[in-house]
């Protein structure tokens, strides 16, 4: 048994998703942060705010992604003051990209930037390891995304409604959680559109069950409330 290094570097195994719909974007993520095989935080929030209208999904090294989003938030705040109006999603994504590309030797984090602005509407930009920037109608990232490429190829369509997009994201994250050991916990989503930002939370036991998954059981309560077993007789 490998010895648990509870103070080792934290990575967010992760499944992160961003999809555009007719009128905005939906960002989704799981909530597991792991150090090796130990789950250091089972309810982490991987969708971080950069500005009022732009959010970023973080994956990879927890420390690197937190620090990077702190820096981008700071630069965007300055930019907003100088510009005199809310920053566009493209600017936010490019700031993320500049930091990720110029420090590519030292950082290990993949990000998905999503938001809404009045010029372009809802936009999703993927910034994977290495610091490329790619504008996409939908983006997936993290270790759990490997299990979702085929799923999205089949299910994705343009011009979904907000409800369709959100249920697609929740379904996709829960499929990835079922197959990826480094993803788990709850599903968090953030919907961004012209009306503002809505955060949603789907606890693990409300997610649909997939092939061979068994329903969650509160085994401790069952053991405690069960009557004492009959004493064995010889």
């Amino acid at each position, binding site marked *: 048994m490998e010895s648990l290094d*509870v103070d080792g*570097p934290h990575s967010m195994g992760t499944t992160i998703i961003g999809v555009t719909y007719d009128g905005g974007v939906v960002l989704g993520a799981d909530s597991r942060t792991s*150090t090796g095989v130990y789950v*250091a935080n089972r*309810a982490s929030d991987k969708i971080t705010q950069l500005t009022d209208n732009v959010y970023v999904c973080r994956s990879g*090294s*927890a*420390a690197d992604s937190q*620090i990077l989003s702190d820096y981008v938030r700071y630069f965007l705040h300055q930019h907003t003051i100088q510009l005199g109006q809310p920053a566009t999603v493209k600017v936010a994504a490019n700031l993320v990209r500049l930091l990720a590309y110029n420090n590519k030797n030292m950082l290990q984090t993949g990000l998905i930037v999503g938001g809404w602005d009045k010029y372009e509407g809802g936009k999703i930009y993927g910034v994977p390891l290495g610091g490329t920037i790619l504008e996409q109608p939908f983006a997936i990232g993290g270790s759990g995304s490997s299990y979702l490429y085929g799923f999205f190829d089949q299910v994705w369509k343009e011009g979904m409604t907000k409800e369709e997009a959100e249920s697609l994201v929740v379904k996709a994250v829960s499929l990835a959680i079922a197959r990826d050991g480094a993803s788990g916990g709850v599903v968090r989503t953030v919907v961004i559109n012209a009306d503002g930002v809505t955060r949603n939370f789907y606890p693990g036991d409300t997610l649909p069950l997939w092939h061979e998954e068994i329903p969650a059981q509160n085994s*401790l309560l069952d053991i405690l409330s069960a009557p004492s077993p009959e004493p064995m007789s010889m």
Partner: protein
Amino acid sequence: MSKAAVDLPPKGGFSFDLCKRNDMLAKKGLTGPSFRKTGTTIVGLIFQDGVILGADTRATEGPIVCDKNCEKIHYMAPNIYCCGAGTAADTEAVTDMVSSQLQLHRYHTGRESRVITALTLLKKHLFSYQGYVSAALVLGGVDCTGPHLHTIYPHGSTDTLPFATMGSGSLAAMAMFESKYKEGLSRDEGIQLVVEAICSGIFNDLGSGSNVDVCVITKGHKEYLRNHLLPNPRTYINEKGYSFPKKTEVLMTKITPLKERVEIIETGDAMEE
């Protein structure tokens, strides 16, 4: 080697060259000196009126217990305390440094320190040393925005949680928390749960032991309960005492008061304003 390049001033920031050298030496089989670690179980939880922090009191140097009653709950600000696990020197130094920075910040702003300020200062420092400052911290406090509890890892990542454990005994303590924690605990229930979690670490983890320290922080008030529980008393003490043969014999005692040796010369003018 050609001296074509101009001598540039050092770029600043931490130089990791010696870290690379150490890794290379370790690969070649050289074991470095063992340093004092706080093996540790440290915990924190948020209860009805604020935050409760708990820690064990064992400090180890490799396999030896070097301090049976060390203090792992460090003062950061009147309303903020921080438990530290990992290398003892690192946790002491980093909490001391940030505590001073917070004091200066209080002088500048004239306000009570916020937990998130301490969090950002610690996180920035630890990240810039890329995990080489081996300090894993549980930071808790109550400020004008309410009670807060955070964990900070050596690489600089942070989590905000209602209950948290760190250190080698964190799994044992987390097991207690996961089964018994609920929101809105009273002060006594909270202290009871913290004590249970630390005891779980003390008795089930080799790197943790001795006594339980507890710190309760509420709005405008804090209680540092040093050695709140002593579950490991020294049970057998020989009544006869211990006698050591072959003492150093005292042959002669001569005491010279130093005043006779020192000459005080009054020179110069008296100080003037």
